[in-house]
């Protein structure tokens, strides 16, 4: 087989290399640089050393947004993983109209985030005449329980966002489905013959076999959770009392509300570093728990 020259290769991927330099390398470098400056857009950036990073240490709002983002990330990934694996297991059973059921589970994930945020904002209206959530609580408890004032307290506002995040597990379900399909049939049969029940088979055969897929989905989940922005902005505006104020919203506000581009850049860099470290940690933990076929 003939090898092509390096020039031919670079020529073909040329568009990406150009874009990579202009839209990735340059802005990331600039973000790092701005992070060490005082920059308001009105005048050129003034280098201030590590001042922005020192400021983070005493920034109580930053503490709040990091905590909120972490709580939201951990819980949404945890419940989302359980739900999406369960749904994938259900959808992998042979059934009629299979592509319809799969499309149904995926459908909410194609709704624009802004649209789904508006729908849920109405759905969480405390008045059971209006809000679907409280209407259903009313229904299923025969009026014995009154639904909460969802956006009235930090706890319920966060719960509302977490519940809602479960409607966007579609892509994860599809990926788990493909993972389940790749689990060799012989393993199932062998375990069955050895007298292992359906639950035992799930935990000892299926889960280890799909663990690389879980790892992939968890990493995607971390990257997405770190950037959650549009939904809380529209549904709660970060409230009440910043209880649903997330890191990306804080970066946006610092940059475009307060015009503090330097601090905003430093906060963006912090977000990137956190994502990198978490991904590294998850991959490291993955070495211990993830089973790779043929490895």
């Amino acid at each position, binding site marked *: 087989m003939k090898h092509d020259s390096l020039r031919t290769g670079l020529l073909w991927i*040329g568009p990406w290399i150009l874009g990579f330099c202009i839209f990735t390398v340059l802005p990331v470098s600039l973000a790092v640089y701005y992070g060490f400056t005082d920059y308001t857009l009105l005048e050129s950036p003034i280098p201030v050393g590590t001042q922005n990073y020192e400021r983070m240490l005493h920034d109580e709002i930053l503490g709040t947004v990091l905590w909120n983002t972490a709580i939201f990330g951990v819980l949404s990934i945890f419940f989302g993983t359980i739900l999406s694996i369960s749904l994938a297991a259900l959808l992998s059973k042979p059934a009629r109209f299979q592509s319809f059921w799969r499309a149904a589970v995926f*459908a909410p994930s194609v709704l624009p985030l802004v649209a789904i945020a508006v729908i849920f904002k109405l759905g969480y209206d405390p008045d059971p005449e209006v809000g679907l959530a409280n209407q259903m609580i009313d229904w299923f408890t025969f009026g014995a329980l009154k639904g909460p004032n969802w956006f009235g307290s930090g706890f319920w506002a966060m719960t509302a966002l977490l519940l809602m995040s479960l409607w966007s597990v579609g892509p994860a379900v599809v990926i788990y489905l493909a993972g389940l399909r790749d689990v060799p049939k012989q393993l199932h049969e062998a375990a069955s013959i050895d007298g292992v029940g359906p639950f035992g088979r799930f935990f000892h055969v299926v889960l280890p076999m799909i663990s690389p897929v879980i790892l992939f989905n968890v990493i995607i989940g971390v990257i997405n959770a770190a950037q959650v922005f549009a939904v809380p902005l529209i549904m709660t505006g970060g409230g009440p009392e910043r209880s649903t104020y997330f890191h990306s919203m804080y970066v946006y506000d610092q940059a475009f509300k307060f015009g503090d581009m330097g601090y905003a850049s430093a906060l963006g860099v912090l977000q990137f570093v956190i994502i990198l470290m978490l991904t590294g940690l998850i991959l490291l933990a993955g070495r211990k728990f993830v089973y790779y076929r043929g490895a």
Partner: protein
Amino acid sequence: MNQAHASNPARTTALRVLLYAMLGLVALTAFLPIIYMVGFSTGVADPTASFGLGGLSETAGRTVDNYHAVITDENTDMPLYLRNTLIIAILGVGGTVISSAIVAYGFSRVRWRGRGVAFMTMLATMMIPFPVVMVPLFVMFREVGWIGTFAPLWVPAWFGNAFSIFLLRQFFMTIPRELDDAARIDGCGHLRNFLYIILPLSKPALLVVALLHFMFVWNDFLGPLVFLTHRDQFTLALGLQLYLSKLGQTPWNLLMAATAIMTAPVLLLFFIAQRTFVEGISTAGTKG
């Protein structure tokens, strides 16, 4: 199915019933927000409620007037937002498909030293969160006078999108190499091989990439929020938020009609191309 189950018809039937009950429940729950949206968008506001907030009138029945009211509302200009969104989407989809296909060819059918490293680098860029580059991109686009134009929202698409390149490369890899070799013996260079052999064979994958980018543009909120400045440049996502921010003046049933207008095209597209779509996503997850 193993034999223990097959030998007991009563149990098999019970399990089937349970399976369909669960599938039905799951599908209903998944569609709940959509049903709720459509229901509310066709309702008539309760005239006794203050400010138009509050519930629907139970006696007034259903109406599609809300949709008409949204389209002709003077506070917002939904047809214009739709036009803007479509312009950005079409320019972006064209760019993403063309550039990503070229780059994916370079990452799959052209063999050169350093290809693996370059490909890994490209995959790694998918981890960069938008908020990191948001401020520098704003500054850069301001420098060239692009803030308040559509350019920042579609020009980058012409330089290949990492996820699309990845998807297309995975697909190109499944095309037998013998085809390339045969083409080469016939005196075809890479360009002709790409245009006349690889591209025609890859229509489904190209369609997935086009669909995904279209949906991305339709969905994108932060990008337009940062780069657009005038109301008459707004996309549907921004327009809907603008409409929502007038809450108190905007009754919920109109807001839901606006949401339905924004949602219907993507849902329709999804159900038409559902199979291609789902396959594209699962390729990405398992062959990575």
